[in-house]
């Protein structure tokens, strides 16, 4: 009994650290595509956390909506955004999409 | 019990009617305009019914789902909420009539369902007595407002809407974290029971800070106002009127409720800070308004300044100053919506809103300029307008609490407001060098602007009525005894 709770605690601790690490990576990753993928992984880890917190209803919703559909929305938006940027750089070959002049 | 007029639960209908109207407009996009107008007209009935109930029978409670707080959600209507509902109905009706002529069909089919959802969110917010339910209404309100700003299209409106969306979501999340802390501190979401259970502890101060910060962001108190001018100035005219008159007031109303009904009396320092920020808003907003070249931005910065007055009350005596604040909210709603609609007419007429090219607009749109001038009277605070009564009450509160510094702020704010209003009126008489093509403004658009401006004026003439109504169930009435030993 003792060892089981201890194992659970270790698992909980690892889960929290993973969550924070994934969040930080998703927020700071220089590659936006990677950031979105990390965000989806973050959502799936959240679903695990909800299971640990005895909230299976939220776990289901998080996996389906938080990770799945939000991830799909982000990936699609990213693809469209890149397409838009390509179109702009096709139109003005001198002006690449990422030159932002700040006044 | 038979459902005579006395027992009809008007409160819930003020929310259901706009919701249902929005669904119908969405279902039948071709008929969105008549359906939307019918819904807008019908909302007046439950609002009048509820105000009458509150005036004659006192505070109304309605337990949605029949469970009652704290298990269920209660609607709670006192004098303050029914005044807010009436203000929304009046401005909403005027703006709806205006919008009927303003929007072409493609935009109208989106405007009506969005606007009616926003209206439902406003009414739900003014009536809700549950802090989590208030979060949902805040989100509904914020997202509807953003979508309405974006309806204008074009780079300015879209970036303005985007900034507004980010601010709105951030504000809601701060508020929600506060809700989480309060729930786990006291085990309730109902404002009334929370207020009774309230004991100072770190979680309460954290919640108060988070919720206040989130709502200040949404209310655009200086220096958190950066998002307001681009959003309010680039939106379609009726939307600008709705945003400036109603939407920012909703988050302020919630802030007022939380500080008065929920949180323990804060120390003098945070109240003074809010007062100072308010003073900053008045001076900074007015100066910015004065140096704008575009009329719509001028009016938007004027909103930043006018919102500052609402916060001057925090350092003053609660009992005296809150009447003034609520009066400010009401009179600014009417005057500013009139002003934005008038500017919308000018923009519609000449295709631009550059102040130095207004080009004798006084002769060409006399009704519109009259509306602008009358609204200006209330914004400046000249008698006999509603703005005058509000400023009078505020000055009275400042005198009676012996804080003379605020008097100076109020007076310089009025002078600056006079400067920017008369600047516009001055250019309206002069001939411009550049000629612009013009198109006729539909009559209804001129008359609704004038109607709202006259309502702002009337608010000054019939001051006793709203003042009496707002004291029904008002928390500060019970506070007076505690303040004066």
């Amino acid at each position, binding site marked *: 009994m003792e060892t089981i709770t201890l194992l659970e605690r270790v698992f909980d601790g690892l889960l929290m650290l993973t969550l*924070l690490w994934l969040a930080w990576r998703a*927020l700071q990753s220089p590659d936006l595509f990677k950031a979105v993928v990390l965000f989806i992984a973050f959502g799936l880890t959240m679903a695990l956390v909800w299971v640990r917190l005895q909230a299976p209803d939220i776990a289901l*919703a998080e996996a389906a909506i938080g990770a799945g559909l939000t991830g799909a929305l982000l990936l699609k938006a990213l693809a469209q955004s890149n397409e838009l940027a390509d179109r702009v750089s096709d139109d003005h070959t001198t002006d690449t999409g990422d030159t932002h002049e700040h006044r | 019990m038979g459902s005579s007029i006395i027992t009809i639960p008007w409160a819930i209908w003020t929310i259901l009617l706009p919701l249902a109207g929005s669904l119908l407009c969405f279902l039948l996009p071709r008929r969105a305009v008549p359906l939307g107008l019918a819904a807008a007209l019908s909302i007046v009935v439950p609002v009048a019914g509820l105000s009458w109930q509150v005036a004659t029978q006192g505070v109304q409670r309605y337990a949605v789902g029949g469970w009652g707080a704290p298990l269920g959600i209660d609607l709670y209507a006192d004098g303050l909420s029914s005044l807010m509902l009436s203000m929304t109905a009046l401005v909403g009706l005027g703006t709806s009539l205006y919008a009927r002529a303003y929007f072409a069909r493609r935009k109208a089919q989106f405007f009506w369902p969005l606007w009616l959802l926003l209206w439902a969110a406003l009414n739900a917010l003014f009536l809700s007595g549950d802090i989590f339910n208030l979060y949902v209404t805040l989100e509904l309100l914020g997202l509807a407002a953003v979508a309405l700003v974006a309806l204008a299209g074009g780079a300015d409106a879209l970036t303005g809407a985007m900034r507004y969306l980010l601010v709105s979501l951030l504000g809601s999340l701060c508020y929600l974290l506060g809700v989480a802390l309060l729930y786990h501190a006291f085990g309730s979401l109902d404002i009334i029971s929370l207020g009774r259970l309230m004991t100072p502890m770190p979680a309460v101060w954290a919640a108060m800070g988070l919720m206040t910060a989130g709502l200040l962001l949404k209310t655009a108190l200086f220096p958190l106002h950066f998002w307001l001018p681009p959003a309010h100035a680039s939106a379609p005219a009726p939307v600008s009127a709705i945003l400036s008159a109603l939407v920012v007031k909703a988050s302020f109303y919630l802030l007022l409720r939380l500080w008065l009904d929920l949180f323990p009396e804060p120390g003098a320092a945070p109240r003074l800070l809010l007062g100072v920020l308010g003073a900053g808003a008045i001076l900074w907003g007015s100066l910015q308004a004065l140096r704008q*070249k575009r009329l719509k931005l001028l009016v938007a910065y004027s909103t930043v300044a006018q919102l500052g007055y609402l916060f001057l009350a925090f350092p003053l005596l609660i009992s005296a100053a809150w009447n003034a604040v609520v009066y400010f909210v009401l009179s600014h709603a009417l005057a500013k919506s009139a002003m934005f609609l008038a500017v919308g007419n000018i923009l519609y007429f000449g295709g631009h809103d550059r102040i130095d090219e207004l080009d004798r607009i006084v002769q060409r749109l006399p009704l519109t300029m009259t509306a602008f001038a009358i609204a200006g009277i209330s914004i400046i605070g000249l008698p006999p307008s509603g703005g005058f009564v509000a400023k009078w009450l505020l000055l009275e509160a400042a005198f009676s609490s012996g804080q003379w510094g605020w008097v100076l702020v109020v007076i310089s704010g009025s002078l600056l407001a006079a400067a920017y209003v008369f600047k516009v009126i001055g250019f309206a008489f002069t001939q411009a060098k550049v000629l612009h093509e013009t198109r006729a403004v539909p009559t209804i658009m001129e008359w609704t602007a004038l109607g709202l401006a006259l309502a702002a004026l009337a608010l000054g003439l019939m001051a006793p009525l709203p003042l009496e109504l707002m004291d029904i169930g008002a928390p500060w009435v019970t506070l007076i005894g505690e303040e004066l030993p």
Partner: protein
Amino acid sequence: MFFALYALTGIGLFVLGLYSLIVQAHLIRKIIALNIMGSGVFLVLVGLGGRTSSAVPDPVPQAMVLTGIVVAIAATALALTLILRVQAETGRTDLPEHTSEH
């Protein structure tokens, strides 16, 4: 008491998200940051319910979080569409420092 750590993790997510929301310029990153902030708030909401050692957790915060998740995806969908429209109109994926004055 141990489960309060989940609430603390939630606070951690909230502030990480807040920091990135302010620092990052790319609008899609800002939306990711807001979503992570939201997850943090949800974790505080449910995590603090685990303070009692009873077997059955409090259902009310769970219902609130379910509502919150749906609100979050609605906001995200609207935001992403708006971002694409902004990009189509202005060619940029961030917000200009100052709005252009005409």
